[in-house]
């Protein structure tokens, strides 16, 4: 058993190394192919040939949109948790802020009756979410470790309760008739329509690529280093001249902004936003996704976010021995998390830095355990 696992592990490692050793152009080409694949994915003409990949229980394109939103969220949360080491259990709260900002500004059912177009509301949604990140962060980022975790969780829960209970945010009645993004086909039909989810997916996909490029730049800069040093030893970081508070706030704000963007996109696609969209479980699922994929590694976060969202939907419509698997999907989800983490504690696609550490630590266990 162990030897097999070892072999699998070393094989995977070798694959990873081969990837790193490949010439640059090969890597670019592979990357380009992957991107093209994902752009092509929502087209029925394409995905019908993909065997069991498309979901059967729910429209695949719509599922892809959900998955892409989760990926965007995972990329954002990875900044907070993976880079800066700030355990944020309430990340979905920022998503809610983004979605509600758009809803309040654009929906005819809103008390404001401003009826803005979607596009105009997006920057404001991002800005407000960022602001809410800063507002939450300013008093709480002085807290360390797990205190922060519970406070962020509390924050998300407070947002949810406010959404449910406040008159202004309309609770479960929600906001309807939120406008779609602008754009028309040549024949005058709107590009972002009601029935075709592909344009929304393409939009999110494009934004994911842009966001990832930006986040990667940050990671490989002074900013990224500051984040990691805070994660490692906050006191020492301060004494080496890192304005830790400022950078933690930046991590929070950057993460929040991405979540706000995701929320705005979601609202623009969905038309309808109510308090049921923001269950606490969502925050936890996103966090699980990030760590599952490999915290601290952007690519890992993407894979984690995608897989987790996809997995939950994929179980829909599968029947095994006459029982609908869908009913059991959270049971499976839970078990998969446990099992996966036991076999790959560093995540599916580990952070290279952490992987090295991990490989070493595995040997450091006291004898006989």
């Amino acid at each position, binding site marked *: 058993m162990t030897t097999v696992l070892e072999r699998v592990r070393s094989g995977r490692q070798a694959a990873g190394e081969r990837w790193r050793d490949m010439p640059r152009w090969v890597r670019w080409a592979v990357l380009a192919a992957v991107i093209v694949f994902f752009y092509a994915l929502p087209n029925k003409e394409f995905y019908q040939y993909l065997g069991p990949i498309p979901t059967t229980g729910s429209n695949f394109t719509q599922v892809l949109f959900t998955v892409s939103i989760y990926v965007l969220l995972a990329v954002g949360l990875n900044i907070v948790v993976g880079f800066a080491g700030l355990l944020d259990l309430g990340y979905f709260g920022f998503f809610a802020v983004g979605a509600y900002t758009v809803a309040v500004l654009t929906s005819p059912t809103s008390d404001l009756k401003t009826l803005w177009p979607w596009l105009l509301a997006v920057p404001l949604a991002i800005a407000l979410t960022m602001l809410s990140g800063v507002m939450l962060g300013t008093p709480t980022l*002085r807290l360390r470790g797990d205190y922060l*975790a519970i406070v962020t969780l509390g924050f998300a829960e407070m947002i949810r309760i406010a959404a449910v209970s406040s008159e202004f945010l309309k609770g479960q009645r929600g906001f309807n008739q939120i406008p779609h993004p602008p754009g028309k086909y040549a024949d005058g039909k709107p590009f972002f329509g009601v029935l075709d989810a592909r344009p929304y997916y393409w939009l999110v996909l494009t934004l994911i690529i842009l966001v990832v490029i930006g986040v990667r730049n940050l990671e490989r800069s002074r900013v990224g280093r500051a984040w990691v040093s805070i994660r490692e030893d906050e006191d020492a970081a301060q004494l080496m001249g890192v304005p830790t508070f400022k950078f933690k706030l930046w991590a929070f704000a950057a993460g929040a902004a991405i979540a706000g963007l995701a929320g705005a996109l979601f609202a623009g696609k969905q038309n309808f936003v109510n308090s049921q969209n923001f269950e606490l479980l969502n925050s936890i699922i996103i966090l699980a996704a990030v760590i599952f994929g490999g915290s601290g590694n952007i690519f890992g976060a993407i894979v984690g976010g995608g897989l987790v969202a996809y997995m939950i939907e994929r179980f829909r419509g599968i029947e095994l021995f006459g029982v609908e698997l869908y009913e059991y999907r959270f049971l499976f989800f839970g078990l998969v998390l446990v099992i996966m983490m036991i076999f790959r504690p560093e995540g599916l696609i580990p952070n290279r830095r952490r992987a090295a550490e991990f490989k070493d630590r595995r040997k450091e266990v006291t004898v006989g355990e």
Partner: protein
Amino acid sequence: MDFDGLFSNFGELTTTGLTQGAIYALVALGYTLVYGVLRLINFAHSEVFIAGAFAALWTWGAFGLDQDSVVTGFGSIVFYLLVAMLAAAAASALTATVIERVAYRPLRQRNAPPLAFLITAIGASIAIAEAFGIYTRRLPQGIPTIVANDTVFSVAGVPITKVQILTIVAALAMMIALDFFINRSRIGRGIRAVAQDPNTAALMGVNKDRIILMVFIVGGAMAGVAGLLYDVRIGNLTYSVGFLLGLKAFTAAVLGGIGNLRGALVGGLLLGVVENYASGLFGSEWKDFAAFAVLVVLLMFRPTGLLGESLGRARA
């Protein structure tokens, strides 16, 4: 704001709040213990609690009691309570142990990063809750009336009921026993040592795995008793109630200073009372909001909780 609603019911809001708080406190102990030793938010602890609550329910079921039964007579009340308490404590301790073995120990043996534990904890929590949900077809389960909610005496016009006395006395007793165990016994010292520096603790001859197991068993048993008390008090049990209760209990632990046993008690009681006052003042829908708001505000002024950390590592 309904000041009248708060003041005219102040006494009763306090007593019911304290009762609920005692249950939070018992569950909080488990979080605090495990957190103190492993630096791990044992998310699955809420399901340890649920296991105890179901075990008590099924034990009564095995004696032929159902939701409409009312137990009378002091002897049989004590009997049913004790039997169910044993069953609940055992079931919870067992669940906790299994979680430790299956979800945490393998990771520990691989020296996995802390976040990995958090995820297995979440995974285990979801899986166990779902298993109970599927088993009960997600329906709420009625609970027999073991202790009637009679008023025993009144203090300044506020009735104190049997259930309240039972809950608070049981919680306090367990808490005191645990405090002695941790602070006075050799194993208690071992627990604190592992909490602060597991490797050095091993160098002093402490068997880490045994200590960790102890922690899960003790914390589990407490949660089991809390489960029983929950059953008696609420009179109804749904598979999914653990999540929010666990969250509150964890909040209580943090409020008091996580890793600090007495803090768990203080935090739990405080949280219970605050929730009830907020219900009186703003309406019940703001109850949880108030609970978290208090947490946030308090942590701003006391970043390590009311009583501060104690089991945990101080900064060197």
